[in-house]
């Protein structure tokens, strides 16, 4: 039998070629620097990023940029057309439209960002717990998630916000209370797939504690899809907050907020359409910018799935 010879000559069956140092291999995961580079090459994502940064700058420096006090009522110049004193004109109470838009960016962005933090703070730990522990913990958490998912989210948020009473903070609480379930589900799914990887077993075999495994091995591998989801959701949250404010549950007069401005301008739609056009444009632009950035991030962080057209 040839086998014995084969054994006798050591591993003669295996030619001893020198292992090429850097075998050409498609890089599946680059560092964050490579991801950033890919993002900056994506023009639409870059446009989204620039718009977001600009709106954030406007929100931060609102007191220095705004030409007038956003809440100052000037009844002599009600529904004024654009002019030198009021660059975009005034609303039905003679308040400066541009200043209200600028301060409105503050309200929209900060509320959406806070809500997003709250959502992630609830959703990610619960999703991780469900996915990692499995068993009854998983069942308990996911059945609760299922219950929440069985209701239309925005309607439920409407009910909660209505119960808590109007106000931006309550809108934020209401949105967080229903929105986290999506995160919990996505995180759970990803944790389940990462958990099966052999590097988790290897970490356990070399003495890493369960918390260490979650912190060092599971969460970092779940992070990049989370960033994408969060960016896309910023747009949706801004829309939802504006929507609830439009219905009168969010920002209360005289506080400037885009959704509330739309609502205020509705009776004058025929006479002064700019009252609705400008806040509407602002909401659309920011939501679109977050969507563009989110799409770009998805492509940049995962070079394998080129779904972009």
């Amino acid at each position, binding site marked *: *039998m*040839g*086998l*014995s*010879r*084969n*054994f006798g000559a*050591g*591993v*003669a*069956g*295996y*030619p*001893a*070629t020198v*292992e*090429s140092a*850097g*075998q050409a*291999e498609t*890089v*599946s*995961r680059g*560092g964050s620097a490579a991801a950033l580079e890919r993002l900056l090459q994506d023009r639409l994502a870059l446009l989204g990023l620039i718009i977001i940064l600009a709106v954030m700058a406007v929100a931060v420096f609102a007191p220095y940029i705004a030409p007038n006090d956003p809440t100052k009522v000037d009844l002599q110049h009600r529904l004024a057309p654009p002019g030198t004193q009021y660059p975009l004109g005034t609303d039905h109470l003679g308040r400066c439209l541009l200043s209200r838009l600028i301060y409105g960016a503050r309200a929209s962005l900060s509320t959406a960002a806070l809500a997003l933090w709250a959502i992630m703070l609830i959703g990610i730990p619960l999703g991780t717990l469900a996915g990692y522990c499995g068993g009854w913990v998983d069942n308990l958490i996911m059945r609760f998630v299922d219950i929440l998912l069985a209701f239309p989210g925005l309607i439920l948020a409407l009910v909660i916000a209505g119960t808590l009473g109007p106000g931006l903070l309550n809108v934020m609480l209401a949105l967080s209370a229903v929105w986290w379930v999506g995160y919990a589900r996505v995180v759970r799914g990803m944790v389940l797939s990462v958990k099966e*990887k*052999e*590097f988790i*077993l*290897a*970490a*356990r*075999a*070399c*003495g*890493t*504690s369960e918390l*260490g495994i979650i912190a*060092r*091995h599971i969460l*970092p*591998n779940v992070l990049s899809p989370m960033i994408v989801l969060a960016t896309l959701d910023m747009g949706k949250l801004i829309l939802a907050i504006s929507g609830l404010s439009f219905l009168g549950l969010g920002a209360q007069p005289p506080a400037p907020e885009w959704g509330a401005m739309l609502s205020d301008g509705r009776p004058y739609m025929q006479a002064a359409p700019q009252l609705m056009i400008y806040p509407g444009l602002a909401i659309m632009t920011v939501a679109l910018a977050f969507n563009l950035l989110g799409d770009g991030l998805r492509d940049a962080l995962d070079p394998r799935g080129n779904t972009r057209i």
Partner: protein
Amino acid sequence: MTLLEVRELVKHYAGKRGIFAGHREKVRAVDGVTFALARGETLGLVGESGCGKSTLGRLVVRLEEPTAGKILLAGEEITGWTGRKLRELRRRFQIIFQDSSSSLNPRRTVGAIIEEPLANFGVAKRERQERVAELLTLVGLEPGDAWKYPHEFSGGQRQRINIARALALQPELVVCDEPVSSLDVSIRAQILNLLRGLKRRLNLSYLFISHDLAAVNYLADRVAVMYLGKIVEILPAEGLVSQARHPYSRALLRAVPEPDPRQRTGRKPVVRGETPDPARPPAGCRFHPRCPEARDVCRQDEPVLKEVGEGHLLRCHFS
């Protein structure tokens, strides 16, 4: 001196659940395995996929809890150990996995990966870095590779990283779970040679799991053949080709491809059919439905593992 001893080890998994609770089928992945491994020895464990050899490897390094049976390390029973005691135990045995890429976290640098076991056992940062450089050199990589990410390496190099991590804590026993199966044939020899060299230098003991008889024979001192959760034959590696007596072992040997075309005889493999469902193992000898020499007694009585020569155990009514 015996380093590792496994007695009647059993691992059952809950299989498909019936519609009504209580009707769960048990998959008998490991079903009463007994063997011993001496210090400095390499025991090769062969068998086709699904025979339970990987489960056995994971049981030994306590990544899975056995359903029954005992594991003894240097004469001390470690089966029930948990918590801090189990963690301390992790220094003494390590495991190298088959899939060299899935066993490395893609988001951590090679340095961080190799450092992890050291950090877990409180080695100071500076010393850790020195050890990482040492380990990288030991497995044939550059100390500067510590800053790279796993995807920057080839499959063979990644397996070297896995080996470095496994050796970081200076274990006594290393379970190699198909360490070369996912590698290119041209790279297997290098990794096998590396493992052999390391064993000599560091006085390691290996439980070497593989379905590749050539690899097992190259590295092992003794070979255990596993079929459907049970060991059917254990014999010294040098006698594998000439003395293997179990029909299954012989079939495995015959399935090894013949490199010299003039020596090829056109013999067909003797094992027919598929591996039976481990949830429903056949009565009598587990191999009888596929055995060319099966007789009535094989269908009724399960043979026991008995000594048939020096260091040669066999589970068969005949041969």
